[in-house]
């Protein structure tokens, strides 16, 4: 039993070491910046996955580019702009609020207000 637990623990220690070796950073801040960037950017091959989850060759290339830019001290917005200039806003899981996306952002709020209005009206009629 203890052997199985030990194997289980070694597996996790090994994978975390591997991640550090693959993208070694000089500081924890850069490591955190890299992690949150690859979490919020979409894999352009498997659209439902972020870059952190994806092992597609294009995702690996993008992670390498992000790694180089983070190591060179570029900011989040500079790296996001670099990628959106090439792949468009679709690469962001959170697209910016603009003319093309206003409905996407406001639709949930509009639907909530519409639902409340219908509910309120229904209750008033019932009374």
């Amino acid at each position, binding site marked *: 039993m203890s052997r199985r637990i030990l194997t289980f623990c070694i597996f996790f220690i090994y994978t975390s070491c591997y991640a550090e070796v693959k993208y070694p950073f000089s500081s924890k801040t850069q490591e955190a910046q890299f992690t949150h960037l690859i979490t919020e950017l979409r894999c352009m*091959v498997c*659209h439902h996955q972020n870059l952190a989850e994806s092992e597609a060759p*294009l995702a690996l*290339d993008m992670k390498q580019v992000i790694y180089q830019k983070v190591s060179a001290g570029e900011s989040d917005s500079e790296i996001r702009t670099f990628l*959106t*200039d*090439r*792949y*468009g806003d679709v690469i962001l899981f959170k697209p910016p609020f603009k003319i093309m996306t206003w409905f996407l952002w406001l639709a949930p709020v509009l639907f909530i207000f519409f639902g409340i209005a219908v509910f309120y009206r229904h209750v008033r009629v019932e009374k």
Partner: protein
Amino acid sequence: MLKKMIPMGVFLVVCGFLLRGLQLHPQEMPSAQLGKAIPMVDVVDVNTLKSCNLSHWLGQPILVHFFASWCENCTDEMPILIDWRQTHHVTIIGVDYKDNPEEAKQWLSLWGNAFVAFLDDNQGQFGLNLGVVATPETFLVDEQGIVQYRHQGPLTPEILTREIEPRIQQWSHKHV
């Protein structure tokens, strides 16, 4: 009457959105490069083994075509590209994307070569700068180096006739 019309209207609008959504293909998204200058990334010309960029071919419309020897769709479309080039005399630049250039050379001698030149992008850096997702992918670049059209997936005679030829003809009319 109006009470029943409003929910019905909302329902129909939502249905309209959903129907439109079913007709869209998430993989076919407009390129962020349209209307922008094509990036002048230095790559190696496989035949001359010299470093170059696309500025060498500007001054005329060019097709920049990303392919690879491991890509089955590229094999299917090569005879179509060869046929099309014979009748249209358009400069087609092949970019060997994430591939071994030696294997690409063998592949071209086996399946035919529609390219004026073919450039080595085995690291995928040129592709990444152009927003390439997968092979085959084609960009129509005008004489000033502005991307006018992008097609993801294999080129078919229909795509060439419907999307690429009219744009090239437009350019020819301007310069007659």
